[in-house]
């Protein structure tokens, strides 16, 4: 019944975004490229955190891995698009192996294990100076393009990845995999007994949560031209997507996107006005969100609308 809406809505948004790229100034292009990056991170985290209900803090690990993979390959002379694709492959394979190792853990133990992975990778990158430049960071080849053309190019690159994660999410949520993951979130033991292959499903979700974050990290690296371990393995890259998904509504298709949009608006307003207390206000936002709106924006408004309708 909603088939028409589900196809034409996203297409209309896509058309609007493409049009937007040709009228927006560089500031808005930069901001919306960040927004699209957040959309990728939020939709990706939604696979493991929203659908399967596993509190993964590994997004920063995939992001940093992708950024360094892309940067190192590009410095070695590999063409840019190949390097970006390789970043996706590497983070996907890494997530699959990591998932096999830590997805048997539950609750706090899983959260910590996934959190520590980014820290450990950061330390490795920090000390492996020969390959990664260590704490000095890595400079990437500069694209010899006009400033606006370049801004548009990165906008479209990020848009491609964001669109890909949207399509992937739409398919997974409607598929048997998505249904199985919801079962795992509600009761893993019961799901197992009823014939859901929990291990395979969880590993698939974990891999899905990495495979597009890697390219996003690689595009980010090319975009900003310079990366260092503290920047790309920043734990906030793991926490922000979680906040966005909670803000928008976990386990839904549009929730993460709405959340990413709301988040970047808040972040931009806060960032511009209070430079010295930026992360403190972000913390306050997280606290208020968790305490007063754990269901997310989408469900809150939906519930309000429903309530209004049912009342005479």
């Amino acid at each position, binding site marked *: 019944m909603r088939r028409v809406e589900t196809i034409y809505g996203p297409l209309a948004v896509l058309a609007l975004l493409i049009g937007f790229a040709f009228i927006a100034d560089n500031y808005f292009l930069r901001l919306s490229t960040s927004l699209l990056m957040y959309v990728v991170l939020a939709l990706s985290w939604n696979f493991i*955190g929203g659908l399967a*209900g596993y*509190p993964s*803090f590994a997004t920063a690990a995939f992001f940093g891995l992708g950024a360094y993979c892309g940067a190192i390959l590009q410095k070695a002379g590999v063409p840019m698009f190949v390097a970006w694709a390789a970043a996706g492959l590497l983070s996907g394979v890494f997530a699959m192996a990591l998932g096999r*190792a*830590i997805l048997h*853990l539950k*609750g*706090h*133990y899983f*959260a*910590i*294990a996934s959190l*520590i*992975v980014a*820290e*450990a990778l950061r*330390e*490795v990158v*920090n*000390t492996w100076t020969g390959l990664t430049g260590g704490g000095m960071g890595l400079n990437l080849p500069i694209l010899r393009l006009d400033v606006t053309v370049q801004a548009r190019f990165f906008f479209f690159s990020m848009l491609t990845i964001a669109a890909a994660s949207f399509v992937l999410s739409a398919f997974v949520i409607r598929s048997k995999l998505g249904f199985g993951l919801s079962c795992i979130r509600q009761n893993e033991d019961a799901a197992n007994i009823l014939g859901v292959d929990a291990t395979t499903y969880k590993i698939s979700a974990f891999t899905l949560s990495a495979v597009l974050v890697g390219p996003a990290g690689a595009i980010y690296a090319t975009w900003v031209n310079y990366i260092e371990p503290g920047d790309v393995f920043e*734990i906030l890259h793991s*926490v922000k997507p*979680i*906040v966005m998904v*909670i803000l928008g509504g976990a386990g839904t298709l549009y929730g993460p996107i709405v959340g990413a949009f709301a988040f970047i608006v808040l972040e931009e307003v806060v960032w511009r006005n209070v430079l*010295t*207390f*930026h*992360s*403190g206000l*972000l*913390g*306050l*936002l*997280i*606290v208020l*969100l*968790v*305490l007063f709106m*754990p269901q997310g924006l989408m469900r809150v408004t939906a519930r309000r609308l429903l309530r209004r309708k049912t009342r005479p």
Partner: protein
Amino acid sequence: MLYLQILVNGLLLGGLYACIASGFSLVWGVLNVINILHGSFIVIGSYVGLLAHQQFGINPFLTVPVAGLILYGFGYALQRGVINRAVGQPVLVTLTLTFGLELLVNNTLILGFSADYKKVTLENPLGQIELGAIFIAVDRLLAMVLALVLTGILYWMLRGSRLGRAIVAVRMDREAASLMGVKVNTIYAVTFGLGALMAGAAGSMMSMIYPISPLTSTAYLGKAFVICVLGGLGSVPGAIIGGLVLGVIESFGSLFFSAELATTFSFVLLILLLIFRPTGLLGRRGYE
């Protein structure tokens, strides 16, 4: 002889680590909340020591009770006012909540004290003891002994006192404890306060040993994680053993590799432990 010296250095550090981790582990075990704020609690304790030393010239050892009490009050209020609303919620919610609080508190600390590294330098250094060829810095030795004494008091309190038994009862079965007349919410707040107290006390002693900055809070938090997983969750003896083991591992790690690789090494160890032995080295659930 070098190895023996390194071993002693590690054990001296390990005492403080045990003190840090016992509070963290207690909160985790009883409230089922991972307190990301724990590192900042330690830093606040360090600043109490630093300020008392700068303003009044008081030795940071003497401010240990003050730092502990201040942090106890802060922790109690924070749990009562904010964290209690999320106790019993899924891991994701409690973890994100304490992470948000950590951002807030840590940024406030940076605004208040700046991110510069500071250190307490005593006017009359306590010197060092020579045991054969081994040198032991007296301030570190005192810190270790005091930290272990505090951890011991916590252990004794959990085992022997009425309050301690109530805390353990809540940890074992919240509903049953509540039916027996234990005020669960008060116990939660007291437990969180005690965790903060241990962090503050350790922090005050740390101010003589490590450079102080709000930026160090994550490093302390990482250590608390590793120790908890090493020693097993929620058990004070586990925290002591885990703390001493981590201290020794770190000092040998810095000898054989480098100081940075020692941190990497402890993280890798943590992941391996989580994969193969998530119940810790002692391998039992700590109900005291």
